[in-house]
């Protein structure tokens, strides 16, 4: 018994601690393993909207469900992004892709939104999804809002490679790793201890060599895939919440948790430089959402994710663009 007892107590202690941490987290509005999603007003709204919003088995997008067969004279917009557009922290009708659809409809532009964004998606993942699902859903426009995932990937060893097949044992360990990383204690330790340690290190002030080239290589591939499908690719500039000098501490810790070796100034400089390169390209259509959004903290819940009013703000900017360029953009769709 003496062999096992201390191990049992250790596990029990960790489990109790996790339970307490999860209770606290859930009361503060976070989803946890034991207690699930928090019950909030927005959650109730999401419950009601779940019936009309995906993803579902037949509609794999986080946006208002539409039939696969496109409606005549409607504009079908494919959103290629990541957690910025998927944003599971807010109800599906709040995220900017849904808001964009609502705003265009209210301005008399028939449209269907296919929000093919998932947390952690990179441009390569966007491209793979567009290549596999695009022909079945036949979008008119591919709207690309994607930068930070590729930026983070460039700081890691094997940024753009797909994972090689792993054996059963390795997959079991991966699942265990994933479970541990979902616990609230892990999240708390990473947010409050590891990121503070990173903040004490001498951080890289710029991205590794070749990061920008890799980003644009991936972007070009996605654009080519969109064109191959007969869709019109439109690239958005990317938004960042603050300048490094006035970045709030908790925002800074989020960055350090995401890319432990990268100083916030490196994020800021890279996003600025990549945006500039996008704007300078004459061969692609660009919506500059960053210039009216970046640096305004109220639009963000962390450095690269939008707050509720941020989603609304972005959707408004996008809707304005689509409205004023609609005759050019629509293709097979248009004003009703």
């Amino acid at each position, binding site marked *: 018994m*003496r062999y096992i007892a201390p191990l049992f107590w250790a596990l029990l*202690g*960790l489990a109790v601690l996790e339970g307490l941490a999860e209770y606290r987290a859930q009361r503060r509005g976070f989803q946890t393993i034991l207690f699930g999603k928090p019950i909030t007003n927005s959650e109730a709204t999401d419950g009601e909207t779940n019936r009309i919003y995906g993803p579902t088995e037949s509609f794999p997008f986080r946006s208002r469900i539409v039939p696969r067969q496109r409606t005549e004279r409607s504009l079908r917009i494919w959103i290629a992004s990541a957690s910025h557009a998927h944003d599971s922290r807010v109800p599906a009708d709040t995220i900017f892709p849904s808001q964009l659809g609502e705003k265009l409809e209210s301005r008399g532009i028939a449209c269907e939104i296919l929000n093919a964004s998932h947390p952690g998606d990179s441009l390569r993942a966007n491209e793979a999804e567009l290549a596999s699902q695009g022909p079945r859903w036949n979008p008119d426009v591919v709207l690309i809002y994607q930068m930070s995932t590729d930026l983070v990937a460039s700081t890691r060893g094997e940024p753009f490679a797909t994972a090689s097949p792993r054996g059963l044992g390795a997959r079991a360990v991966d699942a265990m*790793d994933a479970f541990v990383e979902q616990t609230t204690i892990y999240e708390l330790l990473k947010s409050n201890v590891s990121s503070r*340690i*990173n903040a*004490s*290190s*001498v951080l890289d002030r710029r991205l590794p060599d070749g990061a920008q080239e890799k980003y644009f290589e991936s972007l070009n591939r996605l654009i080519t895939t969109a064109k191959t499908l007969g869709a019109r690719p439109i690239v958005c500039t990317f938004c960042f919440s603050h300048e490094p000098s006035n970045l709030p501490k908790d925002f800074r810790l989020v960055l350090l948790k995401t890319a432990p070796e990268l100083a916030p100034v490196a994020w800021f400089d890279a996003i600025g430089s990549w945006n500039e390169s996008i704007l300078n390209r004459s061969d692609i259509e660009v919506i500059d959402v960053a210039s009216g959004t970046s640096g305004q903290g109220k639009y963000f819940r962390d450095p690269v994710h939008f707050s509720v009013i941020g989603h609304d703000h972005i959707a408004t900017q996008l809707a304005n663009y689509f409205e004023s360029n609609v005759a050019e953009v629509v293709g097979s769709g248009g004003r009703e």
Partner: protein
Amino acid sequence: MNFNSLEYGIFLFVVVALYWAITQSSVARRMLLLVASYIFYMSWSSYYAGLILFSTLVDFQLGKWMAKSESNSHRKVLLLISLVTNLGLLFVFKYFNFFVETGEQVVSFFGSTVEITRSRLLLPVGISFYTFQTLSYTIDLYRRKLDAETSFLNFAVFVSFFPQLVAGPIVRAVDFLPQMSKRPRITPTRFHAGLLRIMQGLIKKVVFADLLAALLVDDVFANPQDFGTADHLLAMYGYAFQIYNDFSGYSDIAIGSAMLLGFQLPENFDRPYIAKDVREFWSRWHMTLSTWLRDYLYIPLGGNRHGERRTTVNLMLTMVLGGLWHGASMNFVLWGVYHGLLLVLAHRFWQVIKNSTVRMLVCFHLVLFGWLLFRIESIEDIGHFASALVYGEWLPVRASLLFLGVLFVASIEHWIQPERLAQIRTTLAAKTPSPVLGFAYAMTILVLVGATVEAPSFLYFQF
């Protein structure tokens, strides 16, 4: 499968549980150890597990023939085959490209050019460690210090035993094989002392070594031009404690893991930075390697038995080969030469310094400078770093308070006697109530998770 990973924790838990669950058959237990060891190694490299198996088969068979032979010349031939096979593999996989490049440079120095195709073979993890281990077996057999192992299973477990397979301690057959033939025993106290030893090793690795590297050391060595003299100095001190905690932490985890399976592995470190001369340093640093080099290289070369000049040659040769053992690169050769010179000088002049504290400080700083040769691969970069130390600008210090704190605690920890630590572990394991011990484990896990900022491999895996 790094020791500081959840993967290893699960692996070790499963192996230990199965090992002690098998109560009847010792063959099944040993078979489990062998299979587990190969699985462990194959998590690094599937193909190169064949190399270990090959070495095992060759040395086991040579050992059997050596045991049967009464002829000294025949035994010598068998020993020679073992040496050629094992060192040949080591040469092919580790040193071929180095010698080719050096040869080409020598030829070009004399005005000619020659181009030899490079080997594309990757370095098998731990090859330097298990090669020395198998060699100790055949050499001890040849010297009749050991009886040949009759069980292939026992011998295969000795060569591949997973806790020390990839980075030591280098275990000798004479110490390990007798443990295989005894019925393994474990007590709750020993079990938890083993777990505490693993925790101690993980703290050394994650809290001291990795943090020192992440907070300053890696950055200074990667971009020395961005840092001033003070940061260079701090990075040197930091690296000294990083490499010590990294490697001794690995040894702690290896020794603790073996304890959970009822085995005793030799100690590898004993507070090397409190040594009062370089000779003493080598009796405290990587002890299983330094005693191996002493017993199987220095003494057979003649040791100090043939006059001062021969002793100097023997020392230099031993240290150069010891340096080369660490890696196929000129900086390791220089590091070996440097330590060889220090030993020769120590042999002659060390007694000049009378005060023991001064001797300790001098020795520590001599070793510290040696780590520069160890850490920096290009000779030009060593020059740049050294000149930045001497002529560098006093730029604002970029090392954080956290770095200074970790360095301070690491240096204090270095003074604690291993015997004292062992006593604390045993007392904790034997007398602490289970809930309190469990709480300590849980807290250690939390500290380790929080302090893990990245997951680099152990430094000594590259050797």
